[in-house]
């Protein structure tokens, strides 16, 4: 239509507005980079935990129980974030706890995005009653508190790594499916897809080579937002005793263990809790910024 205007800025927009838009985009790009740097740093900490942590995270020391955060070395070992009720080093446990959060978080996002993207693309591409069935299930899942069902399922089946990943992952598939379906619906009606069809292109090839690359940025945005959700859900389940079981340190589990000692030894719960809050905040904000940058049409506040 208005193909003679090559820029995306409306033709009558004053140049000052365009410059301002550019500055905003520049700022958003920096924020996304900062968010990504945070996640990479956390991943590095998690990966190098055995070398980085000053102490063995599960080693108990009855003499050093409930030590307050201090840089001074008691019994030859410093505990900068204090120790818990069994004398285990809170800093080392927090560092190791990042592993559980990130591994389960990323694995759950992988499960959720694979299932959600596949079903969303299928629904959008096939249409008809395939679409009706998939979207009815999606609507139904949104129509009740899935967290409660997740707690029930894990409570009955027992908290193992695969169960946690699948349940946390599936709790988020609807978001991917709904957005991808609507994008595929639009793409499918575009001429280039018709053209490939006419040229004899097979459906899996059309989806893989032409549809998927077009929806990839949307997928990345949703996956980032879901990562924050998955990390918080894992911590919540661990807090309820339904996550990764002790003695493996996890942030949610540490917050639970420190709850009884909140009055006398606040550091057991508060340090891992603050890191969890920070991670959740940074990752979900990064998702928002990424959305503004890649796909402003998705904006919904």
């Amino acid at each position, binding site marked *: 239509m208005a193909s003679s205007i090559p820029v995306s800025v409306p033709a009558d927009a004053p140049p000052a507005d365009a410059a301002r838009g550019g500055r905003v985009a520049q700022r958003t790009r920096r924020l996304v980079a900062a968010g990504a740097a945070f996640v990479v740093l956390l991943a590095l900490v998690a990966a190098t935990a055995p070398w980085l942590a000053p102490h063995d995270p599960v080693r108990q020391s009855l003499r050093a129980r409930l030590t307050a955060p201090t840089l001074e070395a008691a019994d030859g070992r410093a505990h900068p974030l204090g120790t818990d009720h069994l004398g285990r080093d809170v800093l080392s446990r927090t560092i190791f706890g990042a592993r559980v959060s990130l591994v389960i978080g990323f694995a759950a996002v992988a499960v959720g995005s694979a299932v959600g993207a596949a079903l969303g693309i299928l629904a959008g591409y096939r249409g008809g009653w395939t679409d009706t069935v998939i979207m*009815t*299930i999606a*609507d*139904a*899942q949104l*129509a*009740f*508190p*899935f*967290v*409660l*069902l997740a*707690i*029930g*399922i894990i*409570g*009955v*089946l027992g908290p193992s790594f695969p169960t946690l990943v699948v349940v946390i992952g599936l709790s988020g598939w609807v978001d991917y499916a709904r957005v991808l379906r609507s994008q595929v619906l639009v793409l499918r009606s575009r001429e280039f897809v018709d053209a490939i069809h006419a040229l004899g292109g097979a459906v899996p090839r059309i989806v893989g080579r032409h549809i998927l690359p077009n929806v990839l940025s949307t997928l990345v945005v949703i996956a980032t937002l879901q990562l*924050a959700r998955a990390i*918080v859900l894992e*911590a*919540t389940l661990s*807090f*309820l*005793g*339904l996550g990764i079981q002790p003695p493996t340190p996890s942030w*949610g589990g540490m*917050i639970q263990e420190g*709850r009884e000692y*909140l*009055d006398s030894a*606040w550091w057991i*719960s*508060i340090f891992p*809790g603050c890191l*969890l*809050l920070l991670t*959740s*905040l940074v990752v*979900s*904000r990064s998702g928002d910024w990424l959305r503004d940058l890649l796909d402003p049409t998705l904006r919904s*506040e």
Partner: protein
Amino acid sequence: MRALAAFLAARLVRALIAVWLVSTVVFVVMRLSGDPVPLLLPADAPRSEYARVARELGTDRPLPVQYAVFLGHVVRGDFGRSIHFREPAMRVAIGYLPATVELGLTAFALAVLVAVPVGVVSAVRRNTAVDHAAMAVALVGQSAPTFFLGILFILLLSLKAGLLPTSGRGDWTHLVLPAMTLGAFSMASIARLTRSALLEVLRQDYVRTARAKGLREWRVVVKHAFRNAAVPVLTITGLQLGTLLGASVVTETVFAWPGLGRLAIHSIYNRDYPIVQCVVFLSALVFIVINFVIDLTYGLLDPRIRPR
């Protein structure tokens, strides 16, 4: 009228499908968890005893039959007897419902009463320090894990400041911390949405007209702008009420609040599965009913669906 009826019929069908799916998931999970018969028998029980219990529970019948029987029981609200309380699971669960409703409604009222004025002020005083501070708090509130927020409140307001009790249910002071914790997420979401919905409306021509007429600013905001911003706010607000229900499991556990959520967690620890099933089902039902009522009010509010 027909449009409204069709809209409600579609929503009712959706609600029924949701209830059916929840029941099916509950059934599948219970089957996956293994044979319940050995749990009820001593290890050295004879085969005849095993067969008798299996017949009693119906686990000796083919799966499709078990599924049909299960659905029949669900329709009648029969989830079997609680192993721990030795009473019908439904009766136990209903007994814990009032505490959850009390907490949920208080949290919801608190969220709306704080969030809507904050959102309005933020929109009217856009890009001032007040707006930035309010939205920063809202962002933290939206991403803070509920259980950690509860722990922080207990530490700061209860243990350090000594203002409020840490846990349990008693007079109104016991309700403050759990309601703040449970309501925080909704409060943050509603405040942000009110702000953006109002900003959207304040840009419209009829607001400019109202201002040009010389109306006072508060009158423009309250009578002309807010009314039109209210529809999206109401929709999301209704959805929040449902979300509160799920989050109350965590809040009730943190504050030892004797409601459905805490009952569910305790029953999981006790392996009291009839109660777990019943609570999951009951909560899903409440959630679905709330959503249905919201759809109803939304249908009545939106002139495009409103009956003539």
